[in-house]
């Protein structure tokens, strides 16, 4: 009996240290971001987190009437870490997909963005077929005409992607048999390698790339069509544990109201120079 109390006390003490402790009535919520996926989220020089998502999170938490704490963590371990109770919400341009729905739950989307290839300005692969156009794709769809044209053009090349993303799956499904795929821990690592010429192409979220291009001082450019549609899931939403349905509903409602009154649009235009709200 005494031992039990002791263990519980110890566990509670640890949990109190941890912060993301979760009583049933949500007072404080811990949200994780990568802090290295500008302009979605980034780490400011003073160590705080900034970008589109931290600002949106502030709005959402106010509307959900909870205290929020932002913590950085590594992208490729986020979902297991969420289920291990490290934090309560993932807000990191996380696409809502069926695969992920098997392990976690999502709020409604707060953004929906296209994805595209990037390469260096001087690369022979710049201006590949379909550049400047949009291609709509469905979940799991392959054999699309425009994509097959790209596949031919990118034969034998090396494509860099961030590990554990929807884009990774897309590249493996469509280019895995003819091109070399290399997975990086962060987008920035991939970009620097693209710039350094270790890989020929990168594939990622377009608005992310847009800001990465600024950082690369015009060395990187888009190539080929922008790819949009349900293939990227229903857009980017907040990830929560399956058991936390109340939390999910609270934040879904907050997102709904932020979309309705144009808050998302304003923030989006501030950070992305374009509106990413889901249509």
């Amino acid at each position, binding site marked *: 009996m005494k031992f039990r109390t002791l263990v519980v006390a110890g566990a509670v003490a*640890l949990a109190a240290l941890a*912060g993301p402790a979760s009583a*049933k009535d949500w007072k404080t919520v811990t949200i994780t971001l990568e802090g290295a996926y500008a302009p979605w989220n980034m780490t400011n020089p003073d160590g705080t987190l900034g970008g589109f998502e931290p600002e949106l999170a502030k709005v959402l938490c106010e509307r959900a009437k909870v205290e929020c704490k932002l913590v*950085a963590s590594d992208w490729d371990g986020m979902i297991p870490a969420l289920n*291990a109770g490290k934090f309560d919400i993932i807000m990191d341009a996380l696409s809502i997909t069926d695969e992920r729905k098997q392990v976690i739950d999502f709020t409604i989307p707060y953004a929906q963005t296209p994805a595209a290839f990037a390469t260096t300005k001087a690369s022979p692969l710049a201006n590949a077929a379909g550049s400047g156009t949009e291609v709509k794709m469905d979940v799991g769809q392959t054999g699309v005409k425009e994509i097959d044209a790209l596949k031919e053009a990118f034969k034998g090349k090396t494509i860099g992607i961030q590990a554990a993303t929807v884009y990774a799956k897309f590249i493996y499904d469509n280019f895995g048999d003819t091109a070399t795929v290399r997975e990086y821990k962060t987008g920035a690592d991939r970009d620097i390698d693209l710039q350094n010429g270790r890989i020929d192409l990168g594939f990622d979220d377009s608005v992310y790339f847009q800001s990465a291009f600024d950082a690369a001082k015009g060395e990187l450019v888009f190539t080929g069509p922008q790819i949009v549609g349900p293939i990227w899931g229903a857009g980017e939403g907040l990830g929560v544990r399956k058991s936390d349905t109340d939390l999910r509903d609270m934040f879904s409602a907050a997102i709904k109201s932020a979309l309705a009154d144009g808050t998302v649009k304003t923030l989006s235009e501030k950070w992305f120079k374009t509106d990413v709200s889901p249509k």
Partner: protein
Amino acid sequence: MTLAVTAVALLIGAVLGAIVAAAKLSGNRVLSFLGSVYTTVFRGVPELLIIYLIYFGGSTAVTAIGQAMGYEGFLGLPSFAAGALAVGIISGSYQAEVFRGAYLAVAKGELEAASAIGMSRALRFRRIIMPQVLRYALPGVGNVWQLSLKDSALISVTGLAELMRTSQVAAGSTRQYFLFFIVGGALYLVLTSLSDQVFDRAERRANRSMPSAMGQV
């Protein structure tokens, strides 16, 4: 942050190491077997994996205990605790070996001499064994500190903003990889050489009864 993690880890490691070393030396077959398993496993599995296992597995375990005790919801292990625990467990396995070696290095004759003048077991341990074990173990503990200092770089994967992660994020956002990693590396060099000196001095102090040991380094 790096220093804090390493210091806490070294403490955890010292306690674990002492327990495990005692278990291995106890002469009890079950205990010494368990001790060997501990040192083998944690020295044989990559640090990165151990950190991941404790980061993910640790909170699952804490949560499971909590729930078994009737506590609802999730209990998390913060990055700092998980990181320090992981590096501590690893350094514990190395320190156990260091302590064991140091204990075995205490000359049998000196123990017999202590018994001969009628020292009790406890007194013998406190007055004769401990001071000598500490002296013999010091260089080893110094090595483990260096090891832990560098292991702490791996905690960056759990998102704790220690030296490594800070340089990584800075490198990523500024695209100045070379610069920031050089700076990060240089900072570690400063830390390791500073701590080297501290341990050197401590060692010299501990060795003051053995002048012959000096000057050989």
